[in-house]
């Protein structure tokens, strides 16, 4: 056995499953897809849609037959609020998480104990591929809570047997002090927050390269190869990318191996298609398309052909690491207007709803997203209307604060609110330009 393979083997959590050749892998997918269709009969939404097309397990002879099956969208989830997509009885649930909805109401994702077990294992796989070892300590600087960010990785690290510092998000100076004092080798956060930590260290006179971190696992927002180089250079670490979304499972859908030439999709659990967003027909490998994902093993809330709205490319060439799974590129765009702000998914419609709640009608507004240093900033400009104007400063400040608070409640982000004079915001013929994204775009 060559040294190269040895190196890779030590970085494979479940060698047998993870290096399954294409043929048995696809046979497993087909078997699981057919079993899934049987289970979906318990979900009224799917029962109806499958019946309408007269399709079922018996109509699936090859994986390509998946194209005969109905698509699921975020709107479908929203319309069946809160847990209309459950395929198990409620008392069988071990966990409920949320994902951002297009309005103030999140959509929900449920897990059985077995779903959580699989999730932990999937996260363990990409963490180990990216250098995590049982003797390591990992600092999680992702928020814990209703959204899945922190939890998947937390349980993945625990599964591997490494130690966790559950630092959660925020308080950068504290994060750095903890890092300096407790010697974690691994950092888990959004890529932009990794750069914030580097900046914060320099501010208090600590060389970020001298921090104990050796590996970083970053996700939750799009980033670029340039950013990776910057992070690796500033913190003197190896940085790994991972991908996932709450509706499917959370982080753990795919992640990079030591080769770092795309993220290995965990195909034994997820069937991923790459489709033209207009026609919903497959694009050739290597071409950008929208990822559409079918959960093959989820118990509580299995989803069929879920439109992620994420644009990426697929590569099915074998990888030097020994895995045969398809790899996906970084996410390079969206097919809807969703923004990702510091790892939080935000829809302009949420901002609009927040303004509606405060003002009773929707004022003229504009969302501007910037990244002055390493962190995203959201500026919401709101034109003042006579009904809301007061000669009293305390009332104006209260209005200002109420808008900011309502945006935080609905969209989960802290925005800089600017009250502006009427007609400050440029009008265009037809639709007003609601969002100005001034950040550097992902490549």
């Amino acid at each position: 056995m060559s040294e190269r393979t040895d190196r890779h083997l030590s970085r494979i959590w479940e060698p047998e499953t993870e290096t399954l050749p294409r043929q048995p892998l696809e046979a497993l997918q087909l078997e699981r897809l057919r079993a899934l269709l049987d289970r979906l009969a318990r979900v009224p939404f799917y029962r109806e849609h499958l019946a309408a097309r007269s399709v079922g397990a018996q109509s699936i002879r090859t994986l390509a037959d998946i194209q005969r099956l109905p698509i699921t969208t975020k709107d479908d989830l929203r319309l069946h609020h809160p847990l209309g997509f459950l395929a198990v009885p409620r008392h069988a649930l071990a966990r409920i998480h949320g994902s951002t909805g297009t309005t103030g109401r999140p959509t929900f994702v449920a897990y059985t104990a077995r779903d959580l077990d699989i999730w932990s294992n999937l996260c363990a796989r990409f963490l180990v591929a990216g250098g995590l070892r049982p003797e390591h300590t990992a600092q999680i600087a992702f928020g814990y809570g209703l959204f899945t960010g922190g939890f998947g990785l937390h349980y993945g690290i625990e599964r591997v047997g490494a130690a966790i510092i559950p630092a959660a998000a925020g308080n950068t100076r504290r994060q750095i002090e903890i890092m300096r004092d407790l010697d974690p080798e691994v950092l888990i956060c959004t890529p932009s927050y990794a750069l914030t930590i580097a900046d914060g260290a320099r501010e208090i006179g600590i060389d970020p390269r001298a921090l104990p971190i050796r590996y970083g696992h970053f996700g939750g927002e799009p980033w670029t190869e340039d950013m990776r180089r910057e992070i690796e250079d500033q913190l003197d670490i190896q940085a790994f990318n991972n991908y996932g979304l709450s509706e499917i499972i959370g982080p753990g859908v795919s992640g990079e191996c030591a080769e770092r030439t795309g993220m290995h999709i965990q195909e034994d659990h997820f069937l991923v298609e790459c489709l033209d967003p207009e026609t919903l027909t497959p694009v050739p490998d290597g071409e950008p398309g929208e990822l559409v994902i079918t959960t093959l093993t989820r118990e509580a809330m299995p989803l069929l052909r879920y439109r992620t709205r994420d644009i990426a490319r697929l590569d099915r060439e074998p990888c030097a690491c020994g895995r045969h799974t398809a790899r996906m590129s970084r996410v390079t765009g969206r097919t809807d207007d969703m923004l990702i702000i510091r790892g939080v998914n935000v829809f302009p419609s949420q901002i609009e709803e927040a303004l509606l709640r405060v003002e009773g009608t929707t004022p003229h507004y504009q969302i501007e997203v910037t990244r002055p240093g390493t962190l995203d900033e959201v500026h919401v400009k709101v034109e003042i209307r006579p009904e809301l104007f007061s000669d009293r400063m305390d009332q104006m400040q209260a209005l200002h604060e109420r808008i900011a608070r309502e945006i935080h409640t609905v969209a989960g982000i802290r925005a800089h609110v600017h009250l502006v004079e009427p007609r400050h915001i440029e009008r265009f013929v037809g639709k007003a330009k609601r969002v100005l994204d001034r950040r550097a775009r992902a490549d």
Partner: protein
Amino acid sequence: MTLQQLSLFLENRPGRLGAPLETIANAGINILTLSLADTAQFGILRLIVREWDRAKQLLEDAGWVVNLTEVVAVGVDDRPGGLAAVLAALEGAELNIEYMYAFTLRRGDKAILVFRFEDPVRAIQVMKERGLHPVDAEELFNLTT
């Protein structure tokens, strides 16, 4: 007895204060006094002018958000302790002062205090009872010209 005060919403950036003042000046309306309250982000400009209704129309036509507020003006002697004497007289009357500002007259030895009360009508009543001298619009503009 109350005075009409115009309030404008302004963004706090260079040049914003000049624009509405110019609008009024161009129409030949004289500003008796003004006060500006500002935060880092926005400000509220408060104006007292004789032809407040015409000024309001002009400003609104020019696109400003304008509010009309009733304020109370009180004349005091322009000497140390003048303001303190007024505030002392109001003490215990449970009148809520939202804000106030002051200016002195070009001629004479009088200063004018402008108050925004929660309840201006009761405030005037209390002031009179306590020997203060609220001035109405007519008197105020006569004093200043």
